[in-house]
């Protein structure tokens, strides 16, 4: 069964990736992604550029609104995602718990909707 793991990070954690702590930060993520790849469960996914690089578009009554930054100011921001193929939710949660941001943010685990005809 396929699940999306959505990695949410606190602003402090996102900042760590761009500061003196960067080697530790990226080392942890590289190790985690490497372990998932080695387990053969990765079906896709990417890290995203920091939330400050986001542009948000919305159409209200036919009018375009374009804003700098992410959709909303929240305590955590989406930092990246992967799609994994594992037996069940328990296995997906196990991989979520291993993410570096599990202890500095959160990981949302959602089943991928099967495409019609599947």
């Amino acid at each position, binding site marked *: 069964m396929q699940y999306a793991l959505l990695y949410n990070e606190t602003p402090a954690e996102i900042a760590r990736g761009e500061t003196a702590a960067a*080697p530790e930060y990226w080392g942890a993520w590289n190790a985690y992604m490497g372990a998932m790849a*080695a387990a053969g469960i990765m079906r896709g996914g990417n890290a995203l550029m920091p939330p400050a690089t986001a542009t948000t578009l919305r159409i209200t009554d036919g009018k375009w609104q374009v804003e700098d930054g992410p959709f909303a100011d929240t305590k955590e921001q989406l930092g990246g995602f992967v799609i994994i193929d594992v037996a069940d939710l328990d296995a997906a949660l196990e991989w979520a718990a291993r993410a570096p941001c599990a202890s500095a943010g959160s990981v949302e685990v959602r089943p991928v909707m099967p495409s019609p005809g599947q």
Partner: protein
Amino acid sequence: MSDAARRAAEGAARTAYGRLLAMLVARSRDIAAAEDALAEALAAALATWPARGVPDNPDAWLFTAARRSLGAVRARGRTADAGEPTLALLDDERAAAGEVPFGDERLKLLFVCTHPAIDPAVQAPLMLQTVLGLDADRIAARFLVSPAAMGQRLVRAKRRIRETGIAFVIPDADRLHDRVAAVLAAIYAAYGSAHDDGDGGGSDLGEEAIWLARLVRELLPEEPEADGLLALMLFCEARRPARRDAGGNYVPLGEQDWQRWQRAPFLEAEGLLRAAARHGRPGRFQIEAAIQSLHAQGVITGAANPAALTALYDLLIAVAPTIGARIGRAAARAAIDPAAALADLDSLAPRCAAHQPWWATRAHVLALAGDSAGARAAATTAAGLATDRAVRDWLLARYGGGG
């Protein structure tokens, strides 16, 4: 309420909860209904005791209230099969006539929760809920499943106990040994993989597990494996303060400052181990505790004893050939013969692709064998599989991996 008073109240509630629930279930065999009835009784107590004062015998008050509400539900004939237990209950109530028979039925409850007909994965959660009254959310976090899924599993297990008619009894002598082993294994599962050199996952129910082990010792004083299990957990507890340095960094067992170990649990564990040995019936938990004792001696004296350690692991593998025991043996053996230890690990490889302790041990053994590139790669995988941030950082820093 002061902290001490709150702890005292919580302690009393914890003792009472399992004892009362066990007595209710002993009669009705319906755990879910007994839990509801007890919850109702506790709510009634909260509503009336502050105004009318705490009764002389709070347990008896709670038991009578819960039994009455259980009887009322049964009498309403909610389910067709309710008739027989209801009659038994009414009989019981008449016979008791206000007098509460305060035996301890908790041991039977422990055996019901760990009956072989119950899914092993739900045995420890079931025990935590029925004996300690923990809610499904807290149990779910420890076992890393969603609260909803844990709730469903518990409901299903309780239904199964009622529908399959699992007997509420102490098992026969010829089956007792295996059944006690199941009770102890479930307690250890509740404690979690909180080993000093491992990667402790989930939320902390260590205190609850230790409480359950003490209860089993009290109920089964002639069972040395209960001593062994309690000793094993107390060794881990004693070392907990030394697992992190002042900066919050992970410190592996071999490098811990033993002056920071907690004296009381450590000495209690050593005493339990000696007491258990007098029975002359070694078992899995006694051997595991002995291994922890030997590790501790090595740290205190500064002279590890890998030959004795390997011999203890051989004994352990003979009675409990788990992956963890075989990895532990390889780690012990590595100090004598890294190449042989590596071969031991290789033989486990097909079952350990995503097993964090295997990769961490592999990094350790490869480093001893002088293969620093191999050690770095293994440590990187171990870090990627770790759920504990301090363990992850330590692995990457020690072996220079992750780049």
